[in-house]
């Protein structure tokens, strides 16, 4: 009963925040609402027995996305104006609400039907539970991500790389040297705080990585936490934008894909199946590489710069 009450409050909160996100006149408020929305979603994931998602949503969905949105908002209103929606022609306004309602209704109906269905036997999920032992980890989500559907994870890393490449390409097209200015404000105690937070974020990341095998966690959550540390260093001016991507950064960006693919290819070359990781050690090795690439990509995307360097 208490659970139901929590769910109800959570659901109402989520819907309200979503509404605020699209209805707030102030764009800053909309972004902030979206970040809180992400945090509530992360609670919802926890309630839905998806702790991996709860961690990922908090770190990536709310954390990194929120930071990206905020910093973009900041850069957009350089002239001091919060971008505000101009009035739409009446005609299109008339159509939006019925369209949205119809879409929501459709989902409710279909979902309702789906919920009442008897469980389909032999789904991919059932098989994943049954054959988890073959992977060498006990967290089924990690098993799916790095085992049964490892290929998805690899292509997803390629998506992340593409996003960074794309962001770099559009940011620096034909205007080398133009870099975003620093966004930080130095406040007393920041140094002390940082010297605490950054090591903690590294620790947490490592913990999440190794826990991923048996408990909630993994490369994505760990990578996001590590990225959060990097974002802090950037925001507080410990790191600044560099005009070029350094060699180390280049290696770091592709490390995840390269280690993952080469491991897979090696297995195939030695008579195994493509991407069949040979045991837990291989999973951890690949996950470490993924974590580093994820963290680095996210920090660089946040900084909107080709590279980073220590503040001189």
């Amino acid at each position, binding site marked *: 009963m208490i659970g139901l009450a929590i769910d109800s409050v959570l659901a109402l909160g989520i819907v309200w925040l979503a509404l605020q996100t699209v209805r707030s006149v102030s764009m800053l408020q909309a972004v902030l609402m979206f970040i809180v929305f992400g945090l509530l979603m992360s609670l919802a994931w926890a309630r839905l027995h998806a702790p991996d998602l709860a961690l990922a949503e908090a770190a990536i969905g709310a954390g990194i996305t929120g930071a990206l949105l905020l910093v973009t908002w900041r850069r957009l209103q350089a002239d001091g104006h919060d971008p505000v929606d101009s009035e739409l022609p009446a005609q299109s306004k008339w159509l939006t609400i019925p369209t949205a309602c119809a879409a929501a209704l459709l989902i409710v109906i279909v979902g309702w039907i789906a919920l009442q269905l008897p469980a389909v036997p032999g789904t991919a999920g059932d098989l994943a539970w049954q054959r988890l032992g073959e992977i060498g980890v006990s967290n089924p989500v990690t098993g799916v991500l790095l085992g049964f559907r490892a290929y998805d994870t690899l292509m997803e890393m390629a998506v992340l790389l593409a996003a960074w490449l794309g962001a770099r390409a559009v940011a620096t097209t*034909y205007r080398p040297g133009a870099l975003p200015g620093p966004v930080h404000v130095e406040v007393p105690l920041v140094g002390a705080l940082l010297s605490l937070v950054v090591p903690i974020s590294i620790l947490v990341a490592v913990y999440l990585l190794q826990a991923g095998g048996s408990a909630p966690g993994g490369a994505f959550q760990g990578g996001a936490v590590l990225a959060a540390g990097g974002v802090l260093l950037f925001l507080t001016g410990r790191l600044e934008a560099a005009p070029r991507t350094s060699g180390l950064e280049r290696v770091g960006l592709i490390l995840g894909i390269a280690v993952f693919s080469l491991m897979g290819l090696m297995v195939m070359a030695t008579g195994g199946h493509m991407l*069949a990781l040979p045991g837990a050690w291989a999973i951890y090795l690949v996950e470490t590489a993924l974590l580093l690439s994820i963290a680095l990509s996210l920090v660089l995307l946040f900084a909107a710069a080709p590279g980073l360097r220590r503040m001189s």
Partner: protein
Amino acid sequence: MTTEALVGLIFLPLLGACATVLPGRLATRAGVLAGLLPLPWLLVVVTLAVVQDPALFVELGGFAAPLGIRLFADPLAVLMLWMVAIIGGLAAVHAWFDFPPDSPAGQSFWPLWLLLTSAMNALFLSADLFNLYVCLELVTLTAIPLIALAGSKTSVRAAMRYLLLALLASLLYLLGIALLYNATGTLDLYLIRTALTAAPPAAVVTALALISLGLLLKGAVFPLHVWLPQAHASAPGPVSAVLSALVVKTAIYLLYRLWLWSVPAGTLAAEHALMLMALLGAGALLYGGVLALLQERLKLVIAYSTVAQLGYLLLILPMAATAAWPVAWQGGLYQLLSHGLAKAAMFLAAANILHALGSDRLSHLRRLDQRQPLSLFTLAVAGVSLMGLPPSGGFLAKWLLLEAAWRSGQWWLLAVLIAGSLLAAAYIFRILAASLGRDDPTEAQPVAASRSIPVIQDAAALLLALLALGTGFAAAPILQFIEAGAPAAWSTP
């Protein structure tokens, strides 16, 4: 060998992309060459294997579907892969000069290009609906920055609009997948066929509708094409070529897979869905054709022509329920092939013209036969294929489509096909007429002399046009190859 070749088609460009990111002067060149050059050789291996067995599966990680993800190669997939290798390859040759690997522009261009190649290969080989979602996103997120690389305001605007709509389309697709997985417990494109008959029709129909809507949006099918013309017209030449010849086709390809492979024949009101899509195709053909006729810039004419020509690919769908299906299928795929080659040739030629003349406005093209003879020749030869005049691949495609329409008794299709071809003739000849025009004596100064462009760039465009022409003579083996993997016609109840 076959497994290795299939895997290589995806992973070589992927690792090549990684290499191009690495530091060092040689890394970019090495990455590009290693990522692209071996593809045709791998394809030869795959093609030979598919000739033997027209339905090749490779289980990644050794996990059988529905648990694992499978790669699937059949004649349709191989045809698409060849198009990626040939069109993408020649466009890359063209791009080598505009985006030299050592330059900052090249540093931005080549990793994205290789990732796009890898993503398209992966997409054409994937047998898993969710993996296809990831592939679609990878295609989108590599294609759009490539558009924006043109750097102009128009191109960034077009990229932004394309991105928003593509993300929306992906979400619709994902929502459909979510419903389908729930209803069937599998994500495998080929296993889902049997599961779908047992699933609740309401959920499945909604899911199919959402997926199709998403794909129609990504495939710029009329009336969801609004993002395409500016995006394709404002991108750098080789990118335009690949966008029009390959990237939009990924969505059409998935529509084929979904409706002709995954949906059990003749169920779930599929005839109506296919007819609806064919009507959209007819609309695209006519609307795109008329709009192409009204454009004042060469690249926009070509881009609207893409909107129109995509229509043919949907027109064949209702014939799945008729006896004319084998001919219709051959015609559709031949159109896919010949349009890809011709359209890529036209975009590359248009890029050369834009480079050489500094403008691609039709009114600035006069005396093109003296200023850019090879580009004009390319436009003309590719145009012949596009209008479906003989001798060209486009002609054979249209012949097959007409024959199928006739045999299936779909007279409205016949009329649409003819009208589409005549519109194409009108906008192509409009370009040619503009190119043969004289200097206007009343104008103060004659058009500027042209800048010279590398002969290889001309050659790449011309070669594609000649290939479009050449497919007019090489149909027999290609059609025989396609025939082996054609989806079965629905037995009419």
